[in-house]
């Protein structure tokens, strides 16, 4: 116990003395949490549209103003030909082209049907299909209005209609930051934990001070605890600032569920994450190696955690990877507790699995960490 006290005192001194590292541990994550969630928004708005109006009729003008006033589209320009409009797409000035054929109004009345042509820049498939769908909706809406106008009161009300009422629970306003903040919080804490822990231990290897420790009667678990506890506390601290300061103070996200439950999970999660850092350090001789390994795994962890894309949509082999990733579980738990107020009973499995990770990573690391060779 007394040995541990001396080890902890040394670690804290070293961490707090390092003026170059301190801001990176404490300020960088918070700063990023303030900015990154604002950038993560799937809602497609401000779609730039180029209109090629060959008709110049009342209808075509009405339709264009309808599109304009919808709020989704920004009129990039009126082009005289499709080729001109296509140039706008090539230059990234516009995302979408709507071409209204010559005689649109006349033929709609005469032939009962007319066709518009839409071309979408589909490099970003999601944005393209959403943009196309919005435009089609607006056109359909205009079409319905027009029909009512033209046919006066006919018997369209006799058509069977299914009314769909949709409700969005837990996040009625569909605020995307509510979804992103809990996830990004977890990623930042994971990065700090893994990098700091792995680099710190390897640094002692590189400078040779670990040899000095190894010839002393310090027990293996004392040394490891001495490394884990400070970073564990730093993780808890950053989480608290993120939760109460940034999530609540800035984004106005008030956890619906039990905050104690979150901290309980955080406690286990941090042990698992630091275990990964420890494991990386036992496989590395130099800081560069530790960094390379940590970078590689962090990248995979972040992408395969359901932070940006849904895990359920992945193919089966990828879901297996996601399930082996501790971040996946904490992101899920953080979102569930903060947004939905899930209870311990809902999260039993998550706790169990995270406990398993913590035990496996740390045991593996301790077995692999040798005082003697």
């Amino acid at each position, binding site marked *: 116990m007394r040995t541990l006290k001396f080890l902890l005192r040394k670690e804290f001194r070293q961490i707090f003395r390092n003026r170059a590292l301190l801001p990176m541990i404490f300020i960088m994550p918070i700063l990023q949490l303030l900015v990154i969630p604002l950038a993560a928004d799937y809602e497609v708005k401000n779609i730039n549209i180029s209109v090629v109006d060959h008709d110049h009729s009342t209808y075509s003008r009405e339709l264009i103003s309808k599109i304009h006033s919808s709020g989704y589209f920004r009129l990039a320009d009126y082009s005289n030909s499709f080729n001109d409009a296509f140039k706008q797409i090539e230059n990234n000035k516009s995302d979408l082209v709507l071409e209204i054929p010559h005689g649109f109004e006349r033929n709609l009345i005469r032939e*009962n049907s007319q066709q518009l042509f839409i071309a979408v820049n589909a490099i970003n*498939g999601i944005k393209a299909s959403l943009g196309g769908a919005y435009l089609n909706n607006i056109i359909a809406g205009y079409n319905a209005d027009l029909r009512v106008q033209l046919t006066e009161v006919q018997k369209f009300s006799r058509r069977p209609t299914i009314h769909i009422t949709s*409700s969005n629970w837990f996040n009625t306003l569909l605020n995307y930051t509510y979804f992103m903040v809990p996830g990004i919080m977890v990623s930042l804490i994971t990065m700090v934990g893994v990098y700091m822990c792995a680099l710190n231990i390897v640094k002692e290897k590189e400078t040779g001070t670990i040899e000095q420790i190894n010839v002393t009667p310090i027990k293996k678990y004392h040394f490891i605890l001495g490394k884990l506890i400070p970073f564990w506390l730093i993780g808890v601290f950053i989480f608290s600032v993120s939760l109460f300061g940034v999530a609540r103070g800035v984004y106005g996200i008030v956890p619906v569920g039990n905050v104690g439950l979150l901290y309980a999970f955080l406690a286990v999660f941090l042990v698992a994450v630091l275990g990964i850092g420890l494991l990386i350090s036992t496989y590395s001789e130099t800081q560069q190696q530790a960094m390379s*390994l940590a970078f590689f795994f962090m990248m995979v962890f972040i992408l395969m955690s359901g932070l940006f894309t849904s895990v359920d949509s992945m193919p089966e082999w990828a879901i297996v990877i996601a399930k082996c990733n501790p971040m996946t579980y904490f992101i899920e738990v953080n979102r569930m507790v903060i947004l939905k107020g899930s209870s311990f009973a*809902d999260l039993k499995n998550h706790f169990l699995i995270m406990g398993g990770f913590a035990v496996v990573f740390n045991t593996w690391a301790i077995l692999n960490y040798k005082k003697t060779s």
Partner: protein
Amino acid sequence: MKQFLIFVRKEFYHVFRDPKTLLMLFGMPVTLILLFGFALTNEIKNSKIAVCDYANDEATQRIVEKLRANNSFEIQEVLMSHLQIEEAFKRGKIKLAIVFPTDFNSDLQHVNEAQVQVIADASDPNTATTLTNYVRNIVMSYQNEITDGKTIPYQIKTETRMLYNPELKGATNFVPGVMALVLLLVCVLMTSVSIVREKETGTMEVLLVSPFNPFLVIISKAVPYFFLSLVNLTVILVLSVFLLDMPFNGNIFLLYGESSILIITALSLGLLISNSTQSQQAAMLISLLGMLFPTLMFTGFLFPLENMPLPLQVIANIVPSKWYYIIVKSIMIKGLGFSAIWKETLILVSMTVVLLFVSFKKFKIRLA
């Protein structure tokens, strides 16, 4: 020149003698391409939804059948109260619930109107809106089926063409992004760390007192990463064309030229970081903790930049990978020539000049 080559060779040795560094250098691009190509998708698939069919009549069965045919859903048919639905959401069992009230079909037949309720777990707003829209479309298509036979007058039809990416594949968007991400991060990281390491171990002093020009010492550290990055680029391109069936419409030499500019920008940034830090730890944390998320977000391949609040769009302008991403898309996918991307190229070049100027200035001060 001979001395310079000797230095460069030494740097290559450093890289190739360390399998863990090699894993990051070459394993990461391959892994990222595979993940983005096959695992990550913005589509919503296999979502578990509950159908609470209190009517269980001909109409609802027909709709449920249509839902089943769609691979976005995994359907469980259970009767649940609102309270039970909430429980299921909290447990993460389902993402959406559809409730058909009793008498759905008879209402539809006799009153010409029926109600269906769609409840989504909007803690994930994207999934919630997407799934709700899918359900809405399916119900609408059923409605259209039963009104068939009547021709609708004055119909405006649309023909939509998806340019560049008719199948709406995610890879088309992701691959240029991955290229930008990998080239930038790996170069910044490796140069900054390799220079600071020499500072830390004291070997930098040895090099600086050698009769060799100190600036060449620095440049020789960057050269191997320049070539390794070109190798990486090639690997990414080969994988994406042959494995992911990506189009390659433009001039390959132009792409390599532009890539070289980005690599040099990244190397200069790494140089600046190494001149501003004293320890490997600090250099790594700046390059990783500090740059990973901003690069992921502000390159523009995960989330469209034009959706972001204006201040963030301004911030994105200082991220070099943003400009490179535009360039790659223009060359590879749109097949455009230099005239379409000279502006972006100019921005990258100016960034490089500024970065190099600042870091050499700092370096000179240290030498003096």
